[in-house]
């Protein structure tokens, strides 16, 4: 496994799980990510990342919430674990601290 390193897509999926809170399952996550990123998202890619994140211990899952349109099948509902929350905040802290170090002049200078 890759340790605590979090890929970009992995981070997005984790955040999406957080957003959807109690109804974070495969298709809902696909919808959410498509809406936010405005790019087509493969269902298999999402499931793959979910499996991997669960293996890493950032997510946990349970079965539930069957509906008629699903042919009576349960959803696998994901929630963030403590480790998942921690890794997300670490990731944000890293970005913030790096943001802070970028001199203002970079932002203020116009494009060449």
């Amino acid at each position: 496994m890759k340790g605590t390193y979090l890929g970009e897509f992995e981070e997005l999926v984790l955040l999406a799980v957080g957003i959807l809170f109690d109804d974070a399952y495969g298709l809902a996550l696909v919808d959410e990510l498509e809406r936010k990123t405005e790019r087509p998202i493969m269902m298999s890619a999402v499931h793959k990342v979910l499996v991997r994140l669960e293996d890493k211990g950032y997510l946990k899952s349970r079965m539930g919430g069957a509906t008629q349109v699903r042919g009576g099948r349960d959803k696998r509902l994901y929630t963030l674990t403590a480790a998942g929350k921690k890794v997300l905040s670490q990731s944000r802290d890293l970005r913030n601290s790096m943001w802070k170090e970028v001199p203002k002049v970079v932002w203020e200078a116009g494009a060449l």
Partner: protein
Amino acid sequence: MKQNKHPNDGPPRWAVRFFRWYCNDYLSEAALGDFMELYDRRRSSLGKRKADLLFIGNVLAFLQPFALRKKRPSYALNEIAMFENYFKIAWRTMARQKMYTGITVGGLALGLATCLVIFLYIRHELSFDKGYTHGARLYRMYNDFRGPDAARWTSLPPMVAQIMKTDYPEVEKAGRLIPQKWQQAGSNLFRREDQVENLYEEGFVYADNELLDILEIPFVSGSRETALVKPNSIVLSKRMADKYFPGEDAIGKTVILNEHKTTPYVIGGVMADFPADSHLHYDFVLTLTGVEFWPGEQTSWCCWNYDTYVRLKPGADPAALEEKLPAIRDNYLMGYLEKSGDQSAADIKLHHFLGLQPVKNIHLNPEKVEDELRHGDMRYVWLFGGIAVFILLLACINFINLSTAKSANRAKEVGLRKVVGSVRGYLIRQFLTESLVYSIVSFVFGVLIVALVMPFFNSLSGTELSMPWRSVWFAPLLGVAALVIGIFAGLYPAFYLSSFKPAEVLKGSVSKGSKSSGLRSALVVFQFATSIVLIIGTFIIYKQMNFILHTKIGFDKDQVVMIQGTNTLRKQQETFKEELLQLSEVEDVTLTDYLPVTGTNRDQNTFWKEGKTREDKGVSGQFWFVDADYIHTLGMKVVEGRDFDKRLASDSLAVVINQAMVKNLGLKKHIGERITNGNTVYTVIGVVENFNFESMKGAIRPVCFTLAKGGSIAAVKVNSRNMADALASLTNVWSKFMPHQPFRYSFLDESYARMYEDVSRTGKILTCFAALAIVVACLGLFALSSFMVEQRGKEISIRLVMGATTGSIFQLLTGNFVKLVLIALVVAAPLSWYLTQRWLEDYTYKISVTWDVFAVAGVISVLIALITVSYQSIRAALANPANRLRSE
């Protein structure tokens, strides 16, 4: 999976099924739900066709390792616990039913032990001469006569080895060997020069120095390159060097053979003892350097006495070389034959070829080259291998039969396990674990049995087998074999037992073990058919053996003592003979080198009618030098003419011939005809009845006796009942003449029997196997019968109460088994008839396979089966029915 009411409503069902098939359980439910939801959405917006295609796309996109991989958190612990339970249950089942366990394990252990012994035997047979570094380039030359009397033999004229080296660039080395009993090859009296006592030693052979190198004989001391280079040098084996020169360096020491003090031998080196898997086994190698057995012998083409070995150069093609070998015949041999006017020259030119036999083939001898060695036989390797497989099968069948028969006892367990959530796979695993436990326990016992019976088997088969524990592969091989056999034997029972439907079993409606009785019967028939084939085979071999040993063989082999080494008496031979005749126990004495048993001299000559040497094709026959007492001492029957007469001087040019000679030469008048061997003309004065002097595998060949004086064996016909006394008197006479030489003797009938040692050995081994097969089959039958009695206990009790007699109950219980054995007999009879016929084809003089053998084998097997089954049946029939019926 829920069935959709409108099949056309949902996505393509094959895609769903496919997804469920490949996807792991962890994901499949949730992912498929997602697919369906998405599909539902798409169908309303995009239409069914597109939605279908996209659905298929989804399914295919999921075909990735993460979806295939089995995800089993915390499963491993559970697994171990399960296996612990399997072992516990297996142990309890075994402990609960001690008799069945004993029979299964005992039978399997016996079968495995047999297999192991046979495996070691076959491995030994196949291991001969595999150890040479240059083994692939090592060949022994042989003559290949492809004419009407086709034959292959090894001895070649002395020059051939040299010619191979000079004329054929492919040949790296060539060396000669004289292995047959000839001159001083064979056995001799042997002593150190500085000691007086002679000892009789065997295993002498003549060889070129180069042969030591060709055969890569390792040397303990001295150099292989020079050990036999000097004339009159000798190489001893380590064993013999230790015997005669303990603690000394043997090299350079002088030894005397047969009291020839004028030609002592000097030890040139000590070689390691020949390994058991070498085709050659010698203790004394005499040099051929400077040897000429008579003037001109080394360059002559008359006499063929040398086995020739060659090592080819790397990359040389033996087949291509063989093609070129007839040049030796044309350039050298033909010249000699034409000069001597041999009538067979044309024949030889046409039919005589030389061949190269790879040394690694010599033991099993697929080329069927005749030589003096003891060979293995590929057919016996196959035969014993087949027997091993069959006996193992019998043992496995016991396991299968018993576990399916006892299925009723396990049915409830299976039902209950299924009810509490075990799937079939787990149950199969459980029963396979159980059969593995059986197999491993049996292996342990099997190996113990082998360790115990190994010495016995070795003495029986004349081998020196041992378990190769030191080899790296042996223990793992046993382990793998235990696994394979455990799984093989357990497979059918595992599937059978795990197939019970819980509802039926728990309701109690599974008929008690009678379900697969058809299969069980078939297996019992198979077991007994195998046993009967082995019994019949054993019978036939023993009958043939008996026939060989006790049939009229043309001479009287009983009560004849052969005193060996009388040639060392030199001029005293006749006096020795006279003294022997003085003894009251001695009836007749003859001095000769030639006797009708192997291990004595043979002299192949070609005979013609007088004056026909250039017209007729000669008749090859044995030319034996005997004295005037030979024919009556050996009890041969003169059917025409007369025996030799000492008093007639003219008898020195007379011969007595056997009937085969008369027939092959086409003599009309028989007595008084004159025949020649090319050198001298002899007059036929008598004809003796044909007698066997070779193995009975071939027809009796022509023999011609002529008078000579002396020989290395005194054959003494003893009239005394008390052989020990007679031998004591003979020893006395011998020591009077030869105080420093051991008195060596053997019995003619024993030597004769030794010619058929291989047959008798095969017979003994086969008896053991037949007995084993029967024991294994009977163990199974015994267990089956006791099981049946157990199952039908109530029925029997009720029958008894209703007035059935003990006899009728016995009949009821045994009838079925006897029927099975009879069917087995019907199956086995034609098969064994065919097999024994094939075996007997080897013999010219043989018994005919008659029906009584089959009848006896049938009666024996039925009796054995009946006795086996009876114990339980009689017990059941005599039991008090009240005891059984009361219990419910």
